[in-house]
């Protein structure tokens, strides 16, 4: 019997980190988007939430891009 426990462990670790990472990034991006809308409505500066939102969504897109790369070239 030859069960690759280290591969399984790796799958657990990376999946949890990547899955939660992606969801957290998108979640933070959405929270920033919401703050941006709030700031706009109350006439405050929107710079900080816009930058945070951009960074979060960009990082999420990069993570998904890497996933796409794995599908196509692995």
């Amino acid at each position, binding site marked *: 019997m030859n069960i690759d426990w280290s591969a399984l462990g790796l*799958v657990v670790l990376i999946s949890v980190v990547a899955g939660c990472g*992606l969801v957290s990034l998108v*979640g933070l991006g959405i929270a920033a988007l919401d703050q941006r809308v709030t700031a706009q409505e109350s006439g405050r500066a929107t710079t900080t939430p816009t930058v945070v939102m951009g960074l979060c969504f960009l990082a999420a897109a990069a993570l*998904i891009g890497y996933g796409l790369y794995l599908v196509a070239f692995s």
Partner: protein
Amino acid sequence: MDFSLIVVVVIATALAFDFTNGFHDTANAMATSIATGALPPRVAVGISAVLNLAGAFISIEVAKTISNGIVDEKLITPTVIFGGLVGAIVWNLATWLFGLPSSSSHALFGGLIGASWVASGVDAVHFPVVLAKIIVPALAAPLVACLASTLATYLAYKITRQSRDTTRAKGFRVGQIVTASLVSLAHGTNDAQKTMGVITLTLITAGSLPTGSVPPVWVIVCAGTAIALGTYLGGWRIIRTMGKGITDIETPQGFAAEASATAVILTSSHVGFALSTTHVVSGGIVGAGLGKRLAEVRWGTAGRIVIAWVLTLPAAALVGALSGRVADMGTVGTVAVALVGVAIGAGVYLLARRSPVSAGNVNEETDAPAAQPAAA
């Protein structure tokens, strides 16, 4: 190329299997997107079909073995493959009738195990490999996905708890469409490859192609089209079970489930620990229910799904053994199995029409299996 009857029959059966594979597994990628309304049902299956077709073309790695060493590859004849495919198709149709998501790969392996067993004896089946490559991953896949998805769902709600519901729903909806598409693409590269591998290896065994050939273009086109067509026709019964039956899904949960499932599928196939997409996504959906509120999972439905998983391998093996045995009796046997297979397919189709599930009623609440008569 000169084809004998059995080779033609195997190719046709492989494509039929690919078709059932497609409509069985549409739910994996699209059930949560349809349930949350991120995509209209027909658009969802359309996108999934196109990406499955694309997936069939982009992958470079071609399935080089039919069974991954689960059965003795030297003893595999076209008749064994035929028996295995019939077993897999019959089980896929039966589980579809009851709206149960079950692994198409397990059905195929089960069919091959049964057919090899009767053709060449019990020694032809490598049980340690079965344990390492089927049983352990089947236990691990839903648990890993469930863990990731539970945490991800918790985080999704926690992080956005002060955001407006509309912003949150809109944002996660976009994310969900992206991850669901990625699952479809990954599915096309994996599952369409499997059928291409089966057809190519059959042609090689029959001497129609030299050893070590890559799939001819017509095989890639046929396999990709079969799986895309199956995907587009949409296994609405299974989509309803996964999208509405296990738990009530909101967009943050749908996104968390899809993101976790994508992560598990891509990670595991990258380290060579291939997990069933069906098992992963089902586990992810259960996790999405757990992560929001522990009581939300309908364990009755989840239990029925698990029973189907446990039965998949032995049931497909039994049908595979029977059909392999009969098909081995020559042309008459092969034709007989093919006819019975078609008859079973027609019978399941007629039974399913008694309680149709379609794009129109796929999102209706149900806590009964889809085979129960649906409310008008």
